[in-house]
């Protein structure tokens, strides 16, 4: 069964080609069948592979399938080869399954409006690139997938390209992630020049042999990889592109900007964990970046008006949790949170799409309200997804994964009290902003009439994701209750276990209890401010300090403004000053020369037949003369 692995990336790629070339000339039904069917096939194959992997794990827990050699130059070879171990297996399964659910949803969601085939072509290409990224056995192939998802992200954010703002958002996403990608590419060059291979496993092996812990090279290389991860995963300081990326269609936001693509950075760090373990200072930087991002994005999410922007900031903040976990060496916890986050964040975006479509593309949540009765699916979807996001104790998936991160942050030898407290404050913020959203959108006065109700292809994905948002956590039951850590045990064949330290006074159960109380506190604050006494929330936001903070957080801590002054304006100024340099003069000269010759030759093309005949005669006479007298 494992030999079917190559089909997983190839099927969506083939369907992308079909959709791009033949798709526009076929019916919408055919497009939906091919576009969704390819991903369904992908999911089925992933499930088969998972089943066979679990039933009879391959030797050493990994399986490599070499298709062909891509590049072979003087000692350097890069193969098109797929590497499957517990880490890439779980990532592949979650990505293909969540993609399938979202494709099914889009088959109905995108039905109105043009570009149906184009949309599915981009989405399929995205899935193909993402799976290539996950399964790649060398960093070059991984980089190919990495750039592929970047490209698809650009195409899908600017999907409604007639609107200029969408194009700008797409460019912003592309350029900002490019900063990270450049760091990643430089990191690749560095690794290759020093270790002479790009095969991931071989690279990790050689790095562990050649570089001592804390060596400068290991720190530089891992910092460069971290740069790439920070760009793709929208972490501080490159997080500014993600909120603007909400310009794309809602299923795109669900697929790319919540469930899968932004976790590529998390995957990269987990994949190259040996390198990060060799560089403790970079790993600390990962944890600090994660903690800072989760707090900053949480604060920004508190004050947004656009329903999708709230979710965008919550994505940034949740990926901050994953980075925090990676930074303290809780590798499995990060991947666990990735999985549960993929479920509930996809759910939240899909139901947000239902709400937006029902209200004529209204994004401002303060113009919504009272939708509880009219859109029951959306309401319950939001309640379940939101509770999972905030970590409603005991029954939701988010609780289990987030508590594992919090507990391991506390107990890890590389963690600490400060990081743990940051995580807890994050829990408080999360629960306040997500219940604020639910209370504002679904309770209170009704403001706009519901015009559009979802059909089965939208309802079914929501129900499935609701179920997963609840059940997804039970694959890893913590020590305090039952102790069945099936998920982390599976991952330990690919990722090392957590290095623990002395716990001090806090045990796992106590950490869970504190997180649960924090969650309840956040829920209570949201209830008080946005359901009971809206006037209190308004008076807080109304006083001068509140207003200033509100504006500051609303603008994402002034990051866009800072980058505008720091990078964009100097470059524009320089371009303006340097407009008339000699390089331009050279190219202008070529253009002038061409124009002059055109003027000269134009006179001969006068349309007079006899003039042409005379030219032919004269030419013949001259040639004959040359031939005869030389």
């Amino acid at each position: 069964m494992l030999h079917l692995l190559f089909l997983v990336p190839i099927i969506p790629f083939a369907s992308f080609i079909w959709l791009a070339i033949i798709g526009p000339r076929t019916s919408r039904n055919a497009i939906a069948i091919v576009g969704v069917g390819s991903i369904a096939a992908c999911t089925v194959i992933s499930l088969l592979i998972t089943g066979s992997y679990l039933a009879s794990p391959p030797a050493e827990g990994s399986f490599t399938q070499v298709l062909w050699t891509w590049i072979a130059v003087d000692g350097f070879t890069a193969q098109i080869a797929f590497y499957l171990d517990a880490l890439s297996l779980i990532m592949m399964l979650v990505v293909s399954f969540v993609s399938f659910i979202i494709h099914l949803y889009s088959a109905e969601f995108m039905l109105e409006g043009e570009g149906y085939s184009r949309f599915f072509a981009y989405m399929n290409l995205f899935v193909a690139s993402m799976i290539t990224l996950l399964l790649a056995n060398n960093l070059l192939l991984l980089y190919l997938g990495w750039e592929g998802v970047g490209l698809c992200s650009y195409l899908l954010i600017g999907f409604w390209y007639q609107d200029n703002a969408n194009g700008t958002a797409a460019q912003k996403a592309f350029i900002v992630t490019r900063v990270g990608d450049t760091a990643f590419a430089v990191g690749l060059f560095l690794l290759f020049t020093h270790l002479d291979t790009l095969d991931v496993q071989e690279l990790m092996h050689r790095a562990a042999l050649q570089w001592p812990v804390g060596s400068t090279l290991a720190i530089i290389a891992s910092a460069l990889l971290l740069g790439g991860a920070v760009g793709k995963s929208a972490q501080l300081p490159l997080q500014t592109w993600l909120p603007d990326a909400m310009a794309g269609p809602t299923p795109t936001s669900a697929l790319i900007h919540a469930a899968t693509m932004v976790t590529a950075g998390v995957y990269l760090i987990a994949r190259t964990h040996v390198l990060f373990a060799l560089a403790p200072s970079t790993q600390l930087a990962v944890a600090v970046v994660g903690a800072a991002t989760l707090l900053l994005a949480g604060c920004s999410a508190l004050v947004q008006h656009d329903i999708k922007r709230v979710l965008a900031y919550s994505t940034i903040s949740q990926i901050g949790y994953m980075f925090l976990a990676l930074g303290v060496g809780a590798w499995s916890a990060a991947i666990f949170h990735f999985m549960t986050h993929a479920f509930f964040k996809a759910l939240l975006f899909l139901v947000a799409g239902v709400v937006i479509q029902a209200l004529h593309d209204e994004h401002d949540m303060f113009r919504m309200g009272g939708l509880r009765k009219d859109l029951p699916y959306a309401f319950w979807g939001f309640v379940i997804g939101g509770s999972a996001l905030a970590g409603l104790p005991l029954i939701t998936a988010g609780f289990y994964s987030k508590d594992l991160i919090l507990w391991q942050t506390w107990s890890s030898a590389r963690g600490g009290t400060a990081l743990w407290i940051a995580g807890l404050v994050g829990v408080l913020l999360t629960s306040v902003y997500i219940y604020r959203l639910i209370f504002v959108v679904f309770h209170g006065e009704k403001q706009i009439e519901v015009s559009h109700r979802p059909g089965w292809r939208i309802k079914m994905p929501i129900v499935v994701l609701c179920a997963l948002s609840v059940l997804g956590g039970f694959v890893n039951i913590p020590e305090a209750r039952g102790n069945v850590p099936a998920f982390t045990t599976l991952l330990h064949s690919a990722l090392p276990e957590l290095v623990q330290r002395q716990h001090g006074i806090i045990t796992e159960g106590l950490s869970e209890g504190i997180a649960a109380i924090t969650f309840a506190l956040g829920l209570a604050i949201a209830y008080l401010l946005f359901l009971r006494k809206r006037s209190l929330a308004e008076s807080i936001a109304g006083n001068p300090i509140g207003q200033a903070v509100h504006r500051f957080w609303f603008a994402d801590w002034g990051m866009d403004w800072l980058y505008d002054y720091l990078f964009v304006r100097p470059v524009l100024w320089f371009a303006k000053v340097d407009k008339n340099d000699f390089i331009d003069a050279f190219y202008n000269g070529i253009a002038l020369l061409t124009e002059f010759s055109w003027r000269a030759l134009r006179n001969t093309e006068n349309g007079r037949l006899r003039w042409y005949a005379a030219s032919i005669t004269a030419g013949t006479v001259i040639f004959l003369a040359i031939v005869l007298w030389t």
Partner: protein
Amino acid sequence: MLFALGVAGLLVRRNLLFILMSIEIMLNAAGLAFITAGSRWAQADGQVMFIFILAMAAAEVSVGLALVLQLYHQNESLDADAASGMKG
């Protein structure tokens, strides 16, 4: 000499019919040259070539006259210079 006469006619005349006639003269001049050369070296090839030219000239005249007819319909004149729509 006959060929030069044809070329001159082609260049000087404006009327499309006369231009076609000049072309005929040029073709026949070439044909005559073939015949003469064939008889001078006692070869049959010259006459074969002339028959080719004859057949080609018939085709050429039919196409040429059809074009002239079309041009006349469009321009209401047989002046070659009137058909200068291709001016650059």
